[in-house]
């Protein structure tokens, strides 16, 4: 049994949630659905951990689906790079699933709950699939799986707020546009190279030289994914989608979806086109990404400062944070990419924690919370408040939290390649982010209740996952070696591919 599992781990992590989602879809018992989903995500996480060990001494696992070798069949590749987002998705997935039960029963029609779980698992499966696959077209498939299920999940928020429908629709259209662009690019590439396997593509593209269609393909693919990753001017769908989705969905999407897309950006630009780095004058793309990232940092932060709805505020902040990650990528140096991996992980932890604590507050008060209604809640909900504060400080990049570590390395990388002005901009924007964070903390702490609420008892099934995330935020802020080392290994691996 064990050898079989280990041999098939790359597909197991995708297939497990996929299978369970089919099972869950037909169930009527909501609690059972939740248990099964938890079990599925737990299993996924176990597999991921096993995979980690596997990767740590094999460094590169290639898995041929149905034993069809690459050019024809679909190849799954797990290496030191992709294991990072897989880890994020499975860990956050498990925690979010644990966390989800109360919310789904509250926020979604009873009949639809098990279907929701099905979509939920499907999203997870799609996201993991996106990471593992080494086939450009298969990637498109997973892209569609994950975004369609995510869109449906977002739209399910309509019981609470009708705007969720519009948000979902918006997400759908833009997601479809993105996916279409991507697939156009893939099609062009296929036409030129005759292969869809990423490894093959990477080998064949340099030979093509300054081929117009390769350039166009690259542009289309990048743009398609950039929409998915909500890189700055293409982020319009994100705030509403995050804000109006059912609470656990916000947590899951905020923590994982965009991260995976960013990972794909890295893959496309460094693995597929990386070896033809100079030909395609990555420099100019690099600068476009750089400026977009800076714009994102400031625009996201400023929008967050003026935003009143807390969930939307966090979503805007995500835009800014994505800016940081993209910034790291755009530096195109090993430390830069490492720093963006570090932030990828850390931001997942931070945002998961923040969204979880905010939606928990919404749960207890049965209300959408905004900057005004938040007042005094912190005293009613000490544990949630504590977690929120820790995660918020982490977002601002305060020491002893993961946010600090990522900022440290990001700034170091930025300084090393661009000089002092870039770190300065980064830091100014992160100082600005303090404003909205502080607005929330202060509002939560001060004792001017605007909501008339009875005494609230905090529920362990909500605060335990939250505390886990909070703990991770602090733990990896101190014992950051694990994340840092792995990120550097990953980035070195990527850069070595380029040279």
């Amino acid at each position, binding site marked *: 049994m064990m050898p079989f599992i280990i041999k098939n781990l790359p597909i197991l992590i995708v297939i497990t949630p996929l299978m369970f989602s089919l099972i869950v879809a037909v169930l009527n018992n909501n609690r059972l659905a939740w248990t099964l989903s938890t079990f599925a995500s737990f299993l996924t996480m176990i597999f991921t951990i096993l995979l980690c060990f596997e990767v740590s001494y094999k460094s590169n696992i290639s898995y041929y689906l149905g034993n069809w070798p690459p050019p024809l069949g679909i190849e799954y590749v797990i290496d030191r790079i992709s294991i990072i987002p897989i880890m994020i998705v499975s860990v956050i997935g498990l925690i979010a699933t644990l966390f989800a039960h109360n919310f789904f029963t509250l926020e979604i029609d009873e009949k639809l709950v098990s279907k929701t779980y099905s979509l939920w698992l499907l999203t997870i499966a799609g996201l993991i699939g996106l990471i593992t696959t080494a086939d450009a077209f298969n990637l498109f498939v997973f892209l569609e799986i994950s975004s369609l299920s995510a869109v449906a999940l977002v739209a399910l928020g309509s019981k609470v707020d009708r705007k969720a429908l519009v948000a979902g629709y*918006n997400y759908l259209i833009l997601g479809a*546009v993105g996916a279409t662009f991507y697939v156009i690019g893939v099609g062009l590439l296929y036409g030129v190279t005759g292969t869809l396997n990423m490894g093959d593509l990477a080998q064949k593209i340099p030979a093509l030289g300054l081929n117009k269609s390769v*350039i166009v393909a690259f542009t289309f693919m990048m743009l398609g994914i950039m929409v998915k990753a909500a890189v700055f001017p293409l982020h319009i769908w994100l705030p509403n989608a995050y804000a109006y989705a059912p609470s656990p969905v916000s947590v899951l999407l905020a923590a994982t979806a965009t991260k995976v897309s960013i990972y794909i950006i890295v893959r496309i630009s460094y693995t597929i086109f990386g070896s033809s780095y100079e030909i395609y004058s990555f420099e100019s793309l690099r600068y476009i990404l750089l400026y977009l990232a800076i714009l994102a940092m400031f625009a996201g932060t400023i*929008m967050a400062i003026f935003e009143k709805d807390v969930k939307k505020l966090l979503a805007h902040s995500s835009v800014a944070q994505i800016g940081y990650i993209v910034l790291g990528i755009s530096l195109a140096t090993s430390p830069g990419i490492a720093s963006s991996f570090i932030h990828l992980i850390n931001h997942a932890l931070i945002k998961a924690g923040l969204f979880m604590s905010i939606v928990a507050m919404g749960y207890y008060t049965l209300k959408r919370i905004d900057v005004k209604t938040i007042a005094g809640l912190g005293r009613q909900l000490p544990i949630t408040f504590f977690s929120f504060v820790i995660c918020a400080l982490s977002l601002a990049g305060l020491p002893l939290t993961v946010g600090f570590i990522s900022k440290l390395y990001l700034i170091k990388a930025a300084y090393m390649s661009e000089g002092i002005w870039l770190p300065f901009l980064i830091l100014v924007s992160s100082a600005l982010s303090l404003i909205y964070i502080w607005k929330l903390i202060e509002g939560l702490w001060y004792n001017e209740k605007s909501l008339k609420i009875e005494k609230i008892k905090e529920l362990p099934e909500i605060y335990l996952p939250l505390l886990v995330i909070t703990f991770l935020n602090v733990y990896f802020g101190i014992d950051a070696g694990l994340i840092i080392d792995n990120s550097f290994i990953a980035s070195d691996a990527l850069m070595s591919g380029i040279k």
Partner: protein
Amino acid sequence: MINSFPPGFIMFIGAFLIPFLPKLGRQVYMIFLVLLSSFSLFNGFGTHLTINVLDYNFIINHSDNLSLPFAIVFHIAAFITIIFGSHKDDWKENIAVISYAGAAIAALHAGDLFTLFLWWEATAFTSVFLILGGNTTRAYRAAFRYIVIQVCSGMFLLAGAVLFLYSNGNALLGQMSIDDTSGLLIFLAFGIKAAFPFLNGWLQDTYPEASEVGTVALSSFTTKLAIYALARSFAGTDILIYIGALMTFFPIFFAVIENDLRRVLAYSLNNQLGFMVVAVGIGTELAINGAVAHAFAHIIYKGLLFMSMGAVLYRVGTCKASELGGLFKYMPITAVCSIIGAISISAFPLFSGFVAKSLIMSSLGYEGLSFIYFMLLFASAGVLHHSGIKIPFFAFFAHESGHKPKEAPLNMIIAMVIGSVLCILIGIFPSIFYQILPYSVEYQPYDFSHVLSQLQLLTFAAFAFICLWHFKIYPPELNSTVLNSDWFYRRMFPAVISNIVDGLKILNEKFSVNCFKGFNTIKNFFHDIMFENKVIDREAGFDTQIVLQIFGIIVFILIFIHLK
């Protein structure tokens, strides 16, 4: 052990026990402290105590022929002041008096600049309470001006000392020159305390504001400490002669028109300091002797005059010439003592002023400084005018004021009598007096021509006053404030600064209003774009946004493709 501490140290430390003593015990205790302290005077010359802190030798107790006469007279002054003040039950003032005197005495025994600085500051911070003890709003304000000026002097001293230490490797208190920066700074520090012209405002400003006891104490120590310091470090510095001459000269006129009799005395004090400064500037042995002798005598007779005015203030409640007069009938002893003080200060033969001032005049003569000599002679006539005649005359004679006070309290009378007796004794037995002076100099003040010239000068000056008064030419005393050099920091600087500050405020207001406007515009702009969304109506917005977005993507694609 106790002997090796400088005299005065015990007074300074012992002062802090005073609040815990009963009222009666305090005066006895204070006198006891003075006596205890005076024992240390018999230690003999030399360095008795140095303390090494942080690789620096503080010469705490060093006495020599120059410090001894000052130490003696400071002890006497402290003694008299304590007796004079013993009618009062005020522990704060008691502490201030005794610790101030102690600090001043200890300062005389400092062997290096930093020890001097230590006590220099101590005299400032203890004496300010004497002024605060005046217990009026005026006194309160004056005290603040006083302490700032005094600390200013201290800062000059410290700065100078630090520079001196750095450039010389030691900070011994010895002969210095004003040609280098450190010397100049120290010179200024001394100059402030010695009330040089234009640095003198604090003296006339603050002394008259203290209580009747406080002024007596104040008049004794601070300025004479400065004279001592000048004599020690700047003897023979030429510029001092001219500074001193100016000091004798100017205050005369102010004293003539001043109404507050204690302020008149303060001007007179300044004028007397001028004599000493001139003597220090000459710097010969005779001149230094003259300076020391004059300081010695001056402390006693000026104390006596301040005491008599203090007694008047205590009994009548005012010291203004315009409100006093005819008190001789009611306070005869005070009046007599006052007259003795006045005669002494005017330097009539057989009184202390004469034997002291003669030394200075003679030394001027030996050096051939004729111009300065006549300036000082002129000043002597002036001294007679404002201190010798004006003080007793306006207080005790002149026209009836209507006040009918009692005679001064017994303790005051005792103090004044002691002072008067000392004045006369010094005047009669100059040779004994001359023995305590730093240098042994053969000098005989009482010869025919000396006495005659002095008597002629003084009587004719007095006669002039009589004529003026008799023919009603002498103008009446008026309630007034006479501007002095303190005007600069009491009126001019504040006015200038407040004008500047007002200007800045207006500027700042305008600036901040504009900034605020600008900031609001920017804020509104962002707000409009993001929330009010003037560009895209929000409610119907999703579709249009998408269109825009897709349009944006296409533009991007075009850009990307055309990038090379």
